[in-house]
Protein backbone atom coordinates (compact mmCIF):
# COMPACT_ATOMS: atom_id res chain seq x y z
CA UNK A 1 0.00 0.00 0.00
CA UNK A 2 2.82 2.30 1.00
CA UNK A 3 4.67 1.65 -2.23
CA UNK A 4 1.48 2.33 -4.19
CA UNK A 5 1.15 5.65 -2.45
CA UNK A 6 4.77 6.36 -3.18
CA UNK A 7 4.24 5.59 -6.86
CA UNK A 8 1.26 7.91 -6.89
CA UNK A 9 3.37 10.68 -5.37
CA UNK A 10 6.06 10.10 -7.96
CA UNK A 11 3.50 10.13 -10.73
CA UNK A 12 2.07 13.40 -9.51
CA UNK A 13 5.55 14.86 -9.32
CA UNK A 14 6.18 13.63 -12.85
CA UNK A 15 3.12 15.42 -14.09
CA UNK A 16 4.27 18.58 -12.39
CA UNK A 17 7.81 18.53 -13.59
CA UNK A 18 7.31 17.24 -17.09
CA UNK A 19 10.44 15.75 -18.56
CA UNK A 20 12.48 15.94 -15.41
CA UNK A 21 11.62 13.28 -12.89
CA UNK A 22 12.32 14.04 -9.26
CA UNK A 23 10.77 11.87 -6.62
CA UNK A 24 11.59 10.87 -3.12
CA UNK A 25 12.35 7.27 -2.42
CA UNK A 26 12.32 7.73 1.34
CA UNK A 27 12.71 10.32 4.07
CA UNK A 28 16.26 11.38 3.35
CA UNK A 29 16.88 10.03 -0.11
CA UNK A 30 15.94 11.21 -3.53
CA UNK A 31 16.22 10.01 -7.07
CA UNK A 32 16.62 11.84 -10.34
CA UNK A 33 15.75 10.22 -13.59
CA UNK A 34 14.34 11.16 -16.94
CA UNK A 35 14.31 9.80 -20.44
CA UNK A 36 17.66 11.41 -21.16
CA UNK A 37 19.14 11.77 -17.70
CA UNK A 38 21.23 9.17 -15.91
CA UNK A 39 19.53 7.68 -12.89
CA UNK A 40 20.89 9.07 -9.64
CA UNK A 41 19.78 7.78 -6.26
CA UNK A 42 20.90 9.91 -3.34
CA UNK A 43 21.21 8.50 0.16
CA UNK A 44 21.75 11.17 2.80
CA UNK A 45 21.27 9.06 5.92
CA UNK A 46 24.85 9.50 7.11
CA UNK A 47 25.37 13.13 6.17
CA UNK A 48 27.03 15.43 8.72
CA UNK A 49 27.31 17.93 10.30
CA UNK A 50 24.28 19.57 8.72
CA UNK A 51 21.19 17.63 7.74
CA UNK A 52 20.06 17.93 4.15
CA UNK A 53 16.81 19.72 3.40
CA UNK A 54 14.30 17.98 1.13
CA UNK A 55 14.53 20.57 -1.62
CA UNK A 56 18.32 20.63 -1.45
CA UNK A 57 18.35 16.86 -1.87
CA UNK A 58 16.20 17.16 -4.98
CA UNK A 59 18.29 19.96 -6.42
CA UNK A 60 21.59 18.19 -5.81
CA UNK A 61 20.28 14.95 -7.29
CA UNK A 62 19.02 16.70 -10.39
CA UNK A 63 22.21 18.75 -10.84
CA UNK A 64 24.40 15.68 -10.47
CA UNK A 65 22.38 13.76 -13.05
CA UNK A 66 22.58 16.72 -15.43
CA UNK A 67 26.31 16.98 -14.84
CA UNK A 68 26.86 13.35 -15.81
CA UNK A 69 24.79 13.78 -18.92
CA UNK A 70 26.85 16.82 -19.89
CA UNK A 71 30.06 14.94 -19.10
CA UNK A 72 29.06 12.05 -21.36
CA UNK A 73 27.94 14.35 -24.18
CA UNK A 74 31.06 16.50 -24.00
CA UNK A 75 33.50 13.57 -23.99
CA UNK A 76 31.67 11.90 -26.87
CA UNK A 77 31.53 15.04 -29.00
CA UNK A 78 34.78 16.60 -27.72
CA UNK A 79 32.90 19.79 -27.00
CA UNK A 80 33.93 21.43 -23.74
CA UNK A 81 31.21 24.10 -24.07
CA UNK A 82 28.77 21.50 -22.75
CA UNK A 83 30.53 21.57 -19.38
CA UNK A 84 29.49 25.10 -18.50
CA UNK A 85 26.07 24.37 -17.03
CA UNK A 86 26.87 22.10 -14.09
CA UNK A 87 30.65 22.00 -13.71
CA UNK A 88 32.82 24.61 -12.11
CA UNK A 89 36.36 25.01 -10.84
CA UNK A 90 38.71 22.04 -10.78
CA UNK A 91 36.16 19.56 -12.16
CA UNK A 92 35.48 21.74 -15.19
CA UNK A 93 39.16 22.42 -15.81
CA UNK A 94 40.08 18.74 -15.65
CA UNK A 95 37.34 17.65 -18.01
CA UNK A 96 38.17 20.47 -20.40
CA UNK A 97 41.79 19.31 -20.35
CA UNK A 98 40.76 15.77 -21.20
CA UNK A 99 38.60 17.00 -24.07
CA UNK A 100 41.48 19.11 -25.36
CA UNK A 101 43.77 16.05 -25.22
CA UNK A 102 41.15 13.95 -26.98
CA UNK A 103 40.89 16.53 -29.76
CA UNK A 104 44.67 16.51 -30.20
CA UNK A 105 44.94 12.72 -30.32
CA UNK A 106 41.78 11.95 -32.29
CA UNK A 107 40.15 10.09 -29.41
CA UNK A 108 36.67 10.28 -28.01
CA UNK A 109 34.96 8.54 -25.11
CA UNK A 110 31.47 7.14 -24.99
CA UNK A 111 29.76 6.52 -21.68
CA UNK A 112 26.68 4.35 -21.35
CA UNK A 113 25.41 5.31 -17.95
CA UNK A 114 23.54 2.65 -15.97
CA UNK A 115 23.03 4.78 -12.89
CA UNK A 116 24.65 6.22 -9.79
CA UNK A 117 24.31 5.21 -6.18
CA UNK A 118 25.31 8.38 -4.39
CA UNK A 119 25.90 8.78 -0.68
CA UNK A 120 26.03 12.30 0.71
CA UNK A 121 28.58 12.20 3.51
CA UNK A 122 29.46 15.80 4.30
CA UNK A 123 27.42 18.98 4.25
CA UNK A 124 29.06 21.96 5.88
CA UNK A 125 27.18 23.94 8.53
CA UNK A 126 27.09 27.03 6.34
CA UNK A 127 25.68 25.03 3.43
CA UNK A 128 28.64 25.89 1.22
CA UNK A 129 29.99 22.43 0.39
CA UNK A 130 28.62 18.95 0.05
CA UNK A 131 30.73 15.86 -0.44
CA UNK A 132 29.32 12.81 -2.18
CA UNK A 133 30.53 9.28 -2.74
CA UNK A 134 29.32 7.91 -6.04
CA UNK A 135 29.31 4.32 -7.19
CA UNK A 136 28.50 4.53 -10.87
CA UNK A 137 27.68 1.65 -13.18
CA UNK A 138 29.27 2.68 -16.43
CA UNK A 139 30.10 1.22 -19.78
CA UNK A 140 33.07 3.07 -21.18
CA UNK A 141 34.30 2.88 -24.76
CA UNK A 142 37.27 4.85 -26.00
CA UNK A 143 37.53 5.33 -29.75
CA UNK A 144 40.56 6.23 -31.83
CA UNK A 145 38.77 7.39 -34.93
CA UNK A 146 36.18 4.67 -35.56
CA UNK A 147 38.13 1.96 -33.77
CA UNK A 148 37.42 0.95 -30.17
CA UNK A 149 40.73 0.84 -28.36
CA UNK A 150 39.35 0.33 -24.87
CA UNK A 151 36.06 -0.82 -23.42
CA UNK A 152 34.99 -1.56 -19.92
CA UNK A 153 31.76 -2.20 -18.08
CA UNK A 154 32.11 -1.99 -14.34
CA UNK A 155 31.40 -0.05 -11.19
CA UNK A 156 33.43 3.14 -10.93
CA UNK A 157 33.82 5.15 -7.77
CA UNK A 158 33.99 8.92 -7.62
CA UNK A 159 34.52 11.38 -4.84
CA UNK A 160 32.52 14.49 -5.57
CA UNK A 161 32.44 17.97 -4.09
CA UNK A 162 29.41 20.08 -4.93
CA UNK A 163 28.85 23.73 -4.13
CA UNK A 164 25.73 25.86 -4.48
CA UNK A 165 25.47 28.68 -6.99
CA UNK A 166 22.83 31.32 -7.52
CA UNK A 167 20.24 28.95 -8.97
CA UNK A 168 21.77 25.47 -8.93
CA UNK A 169 24.37 23.17 -7.45
CA UNK A 170 27.65 22.71 -9.29
CA UNK A 171 30.11 19.85 -9.42
CA UNK A 172 33.33 21.48 -8.22
CA UNK A 173 35.44 18.37 -7.93
CA UNK A 174 34.95 14.95 -9.50
CA UNK A 175 37.77 12.55 -8.75
CA UNK A 176 37.85 8.89 -9.66
CA UNK A 177 38.75 6.75 -6.68
CA UNK A 178 40.04 3.22 -6.24
CA UNK A 179 37.43 0.54 -5.67
CA UNK A 180 38.45 0.17 -2.03
CA UNK A 181 38.35 3.91 -1.33
CA UNK A 182 34.90 3.76 0.26
Amino acid at each position, binding site marked *: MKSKLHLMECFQTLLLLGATILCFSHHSGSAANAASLPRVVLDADSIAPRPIEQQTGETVTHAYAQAWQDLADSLDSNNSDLLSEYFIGEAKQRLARRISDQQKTGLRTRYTDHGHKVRAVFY*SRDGGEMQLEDEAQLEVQVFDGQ*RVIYSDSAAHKY*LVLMTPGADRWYVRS*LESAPNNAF
Partner: protein
Amino acid sequence: MRRTSLTISGLLLLLTVPALPQSLRLQPPAKVTAGESFTIASSGSGTATFYLLGSSHVAKRTIHLGEDVLVPGSEVSDSGLYQAVACVASDCSAARFVVAPSSPARLGFLVHPSRAPVSTSNVINATVLVFDQFNNTLLAPTDVDLRFSPPGAASYDRNAATHRGIAWLEIGSTPKQGQFQIVASAGSVTEPRIVQQVASEACGLRLNGTHNGRFVRVQTEPVRDCSGNPLSDGTIVTFTKIDSEGRSTVDAPIKKGVATAQFELSGQARISVACGVVLGNELSIGGRP
Protein backbone atom coordinates in the same frame (compact mmCIF):
# COMPACT_ATOMS: atom_id res chain seq x y z
CA MET B 1 38.53 -35.98 -47.39
CA ARG B 2 36.09 -33.56 -45.77
CA ARG B 3 38.30 -33.32 -42.66
CA THR B 4 41.36 -32.56 -44.79
CA SER B 5 39.63 -29.69 -46.61
CA LEU B 6 38.50 -28.21 -43.27
CA THR B 7 42.04 -28.35 -41.94
CA ILE B 8 43.39 -26.67 -45.05
CA SER B 9 40.78 -23.93 -44.93
CA GLY B 10 41.57 -23.42 -41.22
CA LEU B 11 45.23 -23.00 -42.03
CA LEU B 12 44.41 -20.54 -44.82
CA LEU B 13 42.29 -18.55 -42.38
CA LEU B 14 45.15 -18.39 -39.91
CA LEU B 15 47.48 -17.18 -42.65
CA THR B 16 45.14 -14.34 -43.59
CA VAL B 17 45.12 -12.93 -40.00
CA PRO B 18 47.90 -10.39 -39.52
CA ALA B 19 50.75 -11.61 -37.40
CA LEU B 20 50.09 -10.57 -33.79
CA PRO B 21 52.83 -9.70 -31.41
CA GLN B 22 53.60 -12.42 -28.99
CA SER B 23 51.64 -11.88 -25.75
CA LEU B 24 51.06 -8.15 -26.10
CA ARG B 25 50.87 -7.04 -22.52
CA LEU B 26 51.44 -4.00 -20.32
CA GLN B 27 52.40 -4.17 -16.68
CA PRO B 28 52.12 -0.88 -14.82
CA PRO B 29 53.38 -0.58 -11.24
CA ALA B 30 50.92 -1.44 -8.49
CA LYS B 31 50.98 2.10 -7.17
CA VAL B 32 51.97 5.41 -8.69
CA THR B 33 52.19 8.78 -6.97
CA ALA B 34 50.74 11.83 -8.67
CA GLY B 35 53.30 13.89 -10.54
CA GLU B 36 56.04 11.25 -10.37
CA SER B 37 57.47 9.67 -13.50
CA PHE B 38 57.38 5.91 -13.77
CA THR B 39 57.69 3.13 -16.34
CA ILE B 40 55.28 0.53 -17.61
CA ALA B 41 56.78 -2.77 -18.64
CA SER B 42 55.65 -4.05 -22.03
CA SER B 43 55.97 -7.45 -23.59
CA GLY B 44 55.84 -8.50 -27.21
CA SER B 45 57.83 -7.33 -30.18
CA GLY B 46 57.57 -4.66 -32.81
CA THR B 47 55.86 -1.33 -32.41
CA ALA B 48 52.49 -0.52 -30.94
CA THR B 49 50.34 2.51 -30.30
CA PHE B 50 50.31 3.36 -26.63
CA TYR B 51 47.42 5.19 -25.00
CA LEU B 52 47.29 6.61 -21.51
CA LEU B 53 43.71 7.27 -20.38
CA GLY B 54 43.14 9.30 -17.25
CA SER B 55 40.24 11.35 -15.96
CA SER B 56 41.78 14.62 -17.11
CA HIS B 57 44.47 13.56 -19.51
CA VAL B 58 44.88 11.26 -22.48
CA ALA B 59 48.08 10.61 -24.39
CA LYS B 60 48.90 8.64 -27.52
CA ARG B 61 52.29 7.67 -28.89
CA THR B 62 54.21 4.89 -30.57
CA ILE B 63 56.17 2.50 -28.38
CA HIS B 64 58.54 -0.41 -28.93
CA LEU B 65 57.11 -3.53 -27.36
CA GLY B 66 59.46 -5.34 -25.05
CA GLU B 67 60.83 -2.04 -23.73
CA ASP B 68 59.70 -0.06 -20.72
CA VAL B 69 57.31 2.77 -21.51
CA LEU B 70 58.25 5.98 -19.72
CA VAL B 71 55.30 7.93 -18.41
CA PRO B 72 56.38 11.42 -17.31
CA GLY B 73 54.98 12.81 -14.09
CA SER B 74 53.17 15.55 -16.01
CA GLU B 75 50.89 12.89 -17.52
CA VAL B 76 49.75 11.57 -14.13
CA SER B 77 49.30 14.74 -12.13
CA ASP B 78 45.70 13.87 -11.28
CA SER B 79 45.01 11.03 -8.89
CA GLY B 80 42.56 8.24 -9.62
CA LEU B 81 42.21 5.36 -12.02
CA TYR B 82 44.13 5.24 -15.27
CA GLN B 83 44.20 2.79 -18.14
CA ALA B 84 47.31 2.04 -20.13
CA VAL B 85 46.46 0.58 -23.52
CA ALA B 86 48.73 -0.78 -26.24
CA CYS B 87 47.34 -1.61 -29.66
CA VAL B 88 48.80 -3.39 -32.64
CA ALA B 89 46.34 -3.05 -35.50
CA SER B 90 43.01 -4.03 -33.93
CA ASP B 91 44.53 -6.05 -31.12
CA CYS B 92 44.67 -4.08 -27.89
CA SER B 93 45.81 -4.90 -24.40
CA ALA B 94 44.83 -2.74 -21.43
CA ALA B 95 45.97 -2.52 -17.84
CA ARG B 96 44.56 -0.44 -15.03
CA PHE B 97 46.56 1.34 -12.40
CA VAL B 98 45.88 3.76 -9.59
CA VAL B 99 47.59 7.09 -9.13
CA ALA B 100 47.62 8.12 -5.49
CA PRO B 101 47.68 11.76 -4.38
CA SER B 102 50.97 13.28 -3.39
CA SER B 103 51.69 14.81 0.03
CA PRO B 104 49.64 17.72 1.46
CA ALA B 105 50.50 20.96 -0.31
CA ARG B 106 47.35 23.06 -0.18
CA LEU B 107 44.57 23.59 2.30
CA GLY B 108 41.12 24.76 1.49
CA PHE B 109 40.23 26.41 4.78
CA LEU B 110 36.68 27.64 5.14
CA VAL B 111 35.66 29.43 8.32
CA HIS B 112 32.15 30.61 8.88
CA PRO B 113 30.91 33.16 9.83
CA SER B 114 33.36 36.00 9.29
CA ARG B 115 31.76 37.92 12.19
CA ALA B 116 30.57 36.06 15.23
CA PRO B 117 28.90 37.31 18.42
CA VAL B 118 30.92 36.80 21.61
CA SER B 119 30.20 34.04 24.12
CA THR B 120 28.13 31.91 21.78
CA SER B 121 28.58 28.17 21.73
CA ASN B 122 29.46 26.36 18.47
CA VAL B 123 29.00 29.54 16.47
CA ILE B 124 32.25 29.23 14.50
CA ASN B 125 32.63 26.30 12.15
CA ALA B 126 35.85 25.47 10.39
CA THR B 127 36.19 23.11 7.45
CA VAL B 128 39.58 22.04 6.16
CA LEU B 129 40.02 20.34 2.79
CA VAL B 130 43.45 18.85 2.20
CA PHE B 131 44.89 18.71 -1.31
CA ASP B 132 48.23 17.87 -2.82
CA GLN B 133 50.08 20.24 -5.15
CA PHE B 134 47.93 19.08 -8.08
CA ASN B 135 44.64 19.76 -6.27
CA ASN B 136 43.97 16.07 -5.67
CA THR B 137 41.97 15.31 -2.56
CA LEU B 138 43.99 13.33 -0.04
CA LEU B 139 41.84 10.27 0.58
CA ALA B 140 44.04 8.82 3.33
CA PRO B 141 43.39 10.27 6.80
CA THR B 142 45.60 13.30 7.36
CA ASP B 143 46.21 15.04 10.67
CA VAL B 144 45.19 18.67 10.69
CA ASP B 145 46.28 20.96 13.52
CA LEU B 146 44.20 23.99 14.33
CA ARG B 147 45.57 26.77 16.51
CA PHE B 148 43.00 29.14 17.97
CA SER B 149 44.07 32.57 19.23
CA PRO B 150 41.03 34.35 20.68
CA PRO B 151 41.23 38.04 21.59
CA GLY B 152 42.43 38.64 25.14
CA ALA B 153 42.87 34.96 25.95
CA ALA B 154 45.51 32.28 25.66
CA SER B 155 45.88 30.37 22.42
CA TYR B 156 44.94 26.72 22.31
CA ASP B 157 45.24 23.83 19.85
CA ARG B 158 42.85 21.25 18.54
CA ASN B 159 43.56 18.34 16.23
CA ALA B 160 41.34 16.69 13.69
CA ALA B 161 41.91 13.89 11.20
CA THR B 162 40.51 14.21 7.73
CA HIS B 163 37.97 11.76 6.42
CA ARG B 164 38.04 11.57 2.61
CA GLY B 165 40.05 14.77 2.59
CA ILE B 166 37.81 16.81 4.88
CA ALA B 167 38.11 17.72 8.55
CA TRP B 168 35.67 19.96 10.32
CA LEU B 169 34.91 21.21 13.77
CA GLU B 170 32.80 23.73 15.59
CA ILE B 171 33.88 25.99 18.42
CA GLY B 172 32.30 28.66 20.54
CA SER B 173 33.31 32.29 20.56
CA THR B 174 35.05 33.81 23.58
CA PRO B 175 33.77 36.70 25.76
CA LYS B 176 35.97 39.50 24.42
CA GLN B 177 35.40 41.15 21.08
CA GLY B 178 38.24 41.51 18.59
CA GLN B 179 40.08 39.43 16.04
CA PHE B 180 39.98 35.67 16.60
CA GLN B 181 42.77 34.08 14.57
CA ILE B 182 42.52 30.45 13.50
CA VAL B 183 45.44 28.76 11.76
CA ALA B 184 45.07 25.36 10.12
CA SER B 185 48.14 23.33 9.29
CA ALA B 186 48.81 19.94 7.74
CA GLY B 187 52.39 18.90 7.22
CA SER B 188 54.29 22.03 6.29
CA VAL B 189 51.27 23.88 4.94
CA THR B 190 49.53 26.50 7.04
CA GLU B 191 46.51 28.63 6.29
CA PRO B 192 45.30 31.44 8.58
CA ARG B 193 41.82 32.88 8.90
CA ILE B 194 40.36 35.68 11.01
CA VAL B 195 36.93 35.78 12.60
CA GLN B 196 35.85 39.14 13.94
CA GLN B 197 34.23 38.61 17.31
CA VAL B 198 31.65 41.29 17.88
CA ALA B 199 29.52 42.26 20.85
CA SER B 200 26.51 40.09 21.43
CA GLU B 201 23.01 41.32 22.28
CA ALA B 202 22.67 44.39 24.48
CA CYS B 203 22.52 43.73 28.19
CA GLY B 204 21.04 45.98 30.91
CA LEU B 205 19.80 48.51 28.39
CA ARG B 206 19.05 51.77 30.23
CA LEU B 207 17.31 54.92 29.06
CA ASN B 208 17.41 58.48 30.49
CA GLY B 209 15.31 61.43 29.44
CA THR B 210 15.56 65.22 29.61
CA HIS B 211 12.29 67.11 29.53
CA ASN B 212 12.41 70.46 27.73
CA GLY B 213 9.01 72.07 27.26
CA ARG B 214 7.04 70.20 24.61
CA PHE B 215 10.00 67.99 23.80
CA VAL B 216 11.80 65.22 25.55
CA ARG B 217 15.28 64.09 24.57
CA VAL B 218 16.02 60.50 25.44
CA GLN B 219 19.44 58.86 25.46
CA THR B 220 20.66 55.41 26.33
CA GLU B 221 23.50 54.72 28.67
CA PRO B 222 26.49 53.20 26.85
CA VAL B 223 25.08 50.11 25.20
CA ARG B 224 27.09 46.99 26.06
CA ASP B 225 26.58 43.26 25.93
CA CYS B 226 26.62 41.04 29.01
CA SER B 227 30.41 40.64 28.73
CA GLY B 228 30.93 44.41 28.78
CA ASN B 229 31.74 44.77 25.07
CA PRO B 230 30.33 47.97 23.56
CA LEU B 231 27.88 47.34 20.74
CA SER B 232 29.14 48.58 17.39
CA ASP B 233 28.28 52.08 16.26
CA GLY B 234 25.49 51.83 13.74
CA THR B 235 23.57 49.20 15.69
CA ILE B 236 19.94 50.24 15.66
CA VAL B 237 18.17 51.12 18.90
CA THR B 238 14.41 51.55 18.82
CA PHE B 239 12.66 54.15 21.01
CA THR B 240 8.90 53.92 21.38
CA LYS B 241 6.66 56.63 22.83
CA ILE B 242 3.05 55.98 23.80
CA ASP B 243 0.86 58.93 24.75
CA SER B 244 -2.65 60.22 24.14
CA GLU B 245 -1.93 60.60 20.44
CA GLY B 246 -0.91 56.99 20.09
CA ARG B 247 2.34 55.19 19.42
CA SER B 248 5.40 56.79 17.88
CA THR B 249 8.63 54.94 17.07
CA VAL B 250 12.13 56.21 16.28
CA ASP B 251 15.00 53.98 15.10
CA ALA B 252 18.35 55.52 15.95
CA PRO B 253 21.84 54.15 15.35
CA ILE B 254 24.34 53.95 18.15
CA LYS B 255 26.91 56.75 17.87
CA LYS B 256 29.94 56.76 20.14
CA GLY B 257 28.34 54.03 22.24
CA VAL B 258 24.96 55.66 22.86
CA ALA B 259 21.72 56.23 20.95
CA THR B 260 19.54 59.30 21.22
CA ALA B 261 16.10 60.42 20.06
CA GLN B 262 13.73 63.31 20.58
CA PHE B 263 9.95 63.18 20.90
CA GLU B 264 7.27 65.83 21.03
CA LEU B 265 5.03 65.23 23.98
CA SER B 266 1.29 65.42 24.25
CA GLY B 267 0.37 64.92 27.88
CA GLN B 268 1.57 61.92 29.84
CA ALA B 269 3.85 59.62 27.86
CA ARG B 270 5.66 56.37 28.35
CA ILE B 271 8.93 55.92 26.46
CA SER B 272 10.65 52.57 26.16
CA VAL B 273 13.82 51.40 24.45
CA ALA B 274 14.79 48.15 22.71
CA CYS B 275 17.81 46.87 20.88
CA GLY B 276 17.41 43.69 18.88
CA VAL B 277 15.47 41.30 21.08
CA VAL B 278 16.43 43.12 24.28
CA LEU B 279 14.05 45.48 26.02
CA GLY B 280 15.32 48.24 28.27
CA ASN B 281 13.64 50.27 30.95
CA GLU B 282 10.59 52.51 30.49
CA LEU B 283 10.28 56.18 31.36
CA SER B 284 7.06 57.90 32.38
CA ILE B 285 7.12 61.57 31.52
CA GLY B 286 4.43 64.18 32.08
CA GLY B 287 4.03 66.72 29.28
CA ARG B 288 2.19 69.96 28.86
CA PRO B 289 -1.13 69.53 27.11
